Each structure stands twice: as C-alpha cells, then as structure tokens.
C-alpha cells in the first residue's frame, strides 16, 4: 500500500498558483512589508504543504554552519501532541487546523485580548535566521527559521512592571492532536521565559522555515525559537501568551522536576540526571561533536545569568 506522507512534499507540491490567488492576498503582498497595517489574511495550508514566503530579509545572529537537510527537519520531530515517536508528527500533524488561528494575550499587560494570527503577524517584518537547535536528548540541527523578534511582539501588548515572566501555551484539542489522548504530559503544553530572556534579541517568533510557512509538525502557525536553550523550551503552535509575576511551571518541569528545570539552558557541564550533555550528534553527521555552552550563544546571552549558579538553576 502506498501512503503518501505529507512530509515528502517538495516544490512541485506547493499549492497551485490559481488556488493560492483565490485566497486573500496577504502573502502575495509580502508577509514582510514592514510596519504596514495589513488587513489581508495569511492563508496557511493544511499539513506540511508549506507555501513560500516572499520578501524575507536575512536577519542577525545566523550561523554559517551547514544547514540540516530539510527532509530531516520535517520528519524528525519531538511534538508529543502528535505521538511520542519522532516519525509520528510528520504523519499525524495534518489533523491540526491552523486556519483560522487565534492567540490569546492575558495577564500583566495593558493591552490584553484575543488576536487573529493575521493581527499578530501584520506589523512585523520577517527575517531569516539560521540557528542551531540542541535537543535535550543529545542531538542537534541547524535550521533556517523565518520569523521576527519576540521582543517586538511583546512590546505591542505593553506588559506592566509586574510582568516578570512570560508563559506560553500550545493548542489543546484531542481531536486535532491525537497524542493528547494519553496523559504523557500535563496538557496543554506550557513553557515560559523570564522577561529579560523573552526580550533578548535572539528570541524569535517563527512562522516559517526553509523559505516556507511552518509545516504543522514543526509547530505551525506560530512557534517560539530560543536557540540557547534545549529544544523543548521552543514551544510550538502557540495559542496563549500570559504575562505573570511569578515563575511559571512548564509541562516538563511537572513531568520531571529533577530532570527539567525552568531555565534549561544548553550546558555541557550540567548533565541530565540520566545522560551526559557533553556531546551531541548533529543530524546528518556520523561522529558526535562537543556541545557548546549556551549552544554557542555565550557571547549574546551569558550576561543574562551573571552571578547565577547554573547547576542550581538548571
């Protein structure tokens, strides 16, 4: 039996131009028109039938290391909402409906509310950033993300002085996310950042990768990318952003408080209780390589943690 996997789509599978034209033309006019108050809607196709994003400028902080194969980025995913095996999400994530999509902004801010994805994206210029991604399991990738600084998004909601942390939530819907039928984690998936971490210029809100909109298995339509932390901090398919005074408890902290801390900065000197974090296997490479402090972003982020015992605040 021949089942075509949605992940194996390539250029020729991209939505035909005519169909694309029938939709309102947010993308056509360029998702990346800076500051323009666009009212059109961004059509996000089902599954990983990603469509090209026009007008993306190269952003800062990109690495010139060899990028991980697009096929590997699309088929080797930890996204437990779609199954615990890494090959599951690319097979089941097509069930998630990403259009329409809305994001709820709550908590300690002056402009809370529920916003459509189009509202969220409209004022931001998109840029490409090639980041390293280090999974807590000991493998890594280099991924060309498309997105905009998280800080720019946060500023729009005018967080108050009480907002010391930002909490994010993934979609919770058992019909769309078959993996949620089992309580492997305390759904919905939650993650959080300290405010200064969230406002750091490296923190990215991603909407695409490899020149196209995010495939569902990679966290469509909107995900976080925090490259100096283990991959699970980079929460996918975000539906809620909550500003709060106290430190949030992430899903992984609940699942294993001894194993997963709030910070979860990439740190070769602090082992996971069950395995070493000294080395990693870059997907596509044979030999392992040394894991770098803060995943190689020490120069940018070390100052966030001066005076902190990173063994205690792991």
């Amino acid at each position, binding site marked *: 039996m021949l089942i075509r996997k949605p992940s194996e789509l390539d250029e020729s599978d991209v939505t035909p131009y005519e169909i694309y034209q029938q939709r309102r033309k947010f993308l056509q006019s360029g998702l990346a028109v800076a500051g323009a108050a666009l009212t059109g809607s961004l059509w996000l196709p089902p599954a990983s039938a990603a469509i090209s994003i026009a007008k993306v400028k190269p952003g800062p902080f990109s690495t010139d290391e060899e990028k*991980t*194969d697009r*096929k*590997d980025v699309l*088929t*080797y995913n930890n996204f*437990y909402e779609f199954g*615990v095996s*890494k*090959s599951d999400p690319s097979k089941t994530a097509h069930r998630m409906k990403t259009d329409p999509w809305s994001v709820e902004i709550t908590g300690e801010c002056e402009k809370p509310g529920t916003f459509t994805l189009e509202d969220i994206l409209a004022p931001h210029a998109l840029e490409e950033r090639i980041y390293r991604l280090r999974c807590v*399991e000991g*493998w890594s990738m280099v991924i060309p993300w498309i997105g905009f600084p998280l800080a720019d998004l946060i500023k729009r909601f005018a967080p108050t002085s009480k907002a010391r942390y930002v909490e994010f939530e993934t979609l919770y819907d058992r019909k769309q996310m078959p993996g949620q039928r*089992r309580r*492997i*984690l305390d759904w919905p998936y939650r993650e959080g950042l300290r405010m200064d971490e969230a406002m750091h210029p490296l923190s990215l809100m991603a909407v695409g990768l490899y020149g196209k909109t995010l495939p569902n298995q990679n966290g469509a339509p909107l995900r976080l990318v925090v490259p100096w932390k283990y991959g699970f901090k980079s929460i996918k398919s975000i539906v809620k952003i909550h500003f709060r005074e106290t430190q949030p408890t992430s899903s992984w902290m609940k*699942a*294993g408080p001894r194993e997963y801390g709030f910070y979860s900065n990439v740190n070769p000197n602090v*082992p996971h209780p*069950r*395995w*070493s974090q*000294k080395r990693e*296997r870059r*997907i*596509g490479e*044979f*030999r*392992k390589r040394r894991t770098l402090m803060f995943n190689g972003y020490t120069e940018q982020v070390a100052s966030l943690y001066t005076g902190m015992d990173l063994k205690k605040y792991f």
Partner: protein
Amino acid sequence: MIHHAKFREMQKRLLKPAVFLLCLLPLAVLVWQLLSDRLGANPIDAVADSTGEWTLRFLLITLAATPLKHLLGWGWTIRVRRMLGLFAFFYATLHLFTYLWLDQFFDWGEIWLDILDRPFITVGMLTFVLLLPLAATSNNAMVRRLGRNWKRLHRFAYVIPLLGVVHFWWLVKADVREPLVYGVLLAVLLLLRVRRKTFTSRVAGESCAS
C-alpha cells in the same frame, strides 16, 4: 506411513536451520533499512533502539519456550530454546557495540563515567555481563561438566530480562508504555512458572495422600 515418518524426520532436520534464519531476519531488515536510508534522520539511534528491543524480545521468546510446551504441548520450542537464548545474546552484543562504537566512539573514560553515573547504563552493562556466563556455558560439554550447577547458573535467565526492562524503563523520557508492555509480558511468563510449580506440587501432594 513411511511417508509420514519421512516427513516428520525432515521437519525435525529443518527446524533448527529454519529458526536460525528466522532469528537473523530482524538483523537483515535493519541492515536493509540502514543501507536504503529508511531509518530516518538519526539512523544510529534507530540501530541502538532496534538492537536493544530485539534483545528484549529474544529474552522473552526464550522464556516462552517452556510455558508453550506445557500449555500447547509443543516439544519443538524446547529444542530451539538454546538457539533463541544465544540470539538474545547476539542482539545484546550488537546493541552494546552500537553504544561503544557509534555512541561513545570507544572513549573508555566517558564509557566508564557513564557506567558509574547513569543508572540505565549501569543496569544495561550488568545485564550484558550476566548474559556472558550463560552464553559461554551453553554448549553440551559445559552442561555435562557443570551438572546441577548449570541449572542454578541458568536461573539468571529469569533475572536478565527483568534488568533489561528496567534498563529500558529508565531510559525513556516520559512515555513508559513500551517498557511496560515488556514488563507485563515478562510478569506473565514468570507467573506461569510459579503457577505450574504450585499446581504440580499440589497434584504430587494429592497423589501421595491417596
């Protein structure tokens, strides 16, 4: 009738080669998947997982030989039991070498630290170390030489899969369903033995009384 006897004879002769080839099938599939790039983005991890799981499966299949004989009257399972056990050892060796070579690249210092610091590695190593004497004493000469002690030594066959399940359990991040399945199967296989033991001793007791 002669034909029937001949057929039985042939069956008997073909049993071991057939089982032998069948036991190599998982390895053949794995090699084929590896060479045809079907193991996904992280083939080395996939090889480690597969060889580990086949070790556990063969340990359980070996343990199933005796209950199958008692429950279904299949004598042939006992005739291939030793081969099945040796295949468990074979896949365990492949699993260990995957770790030593493709995971640690023979960095003995790191490997030693792993054994000391990582409980799941400690248990995995212990499992392999316990398998060694069983594999080494599996030939007929050793069975004769060790006599009663052979049976005592080979009782480790009950402990080894248990350690294997623990090894798997401690490795998984959040979803323990898979190691749980192996654990339940193992529990069933062990319980069948306990039940049979109590049952046969009761029958023996009754016949004595009468």
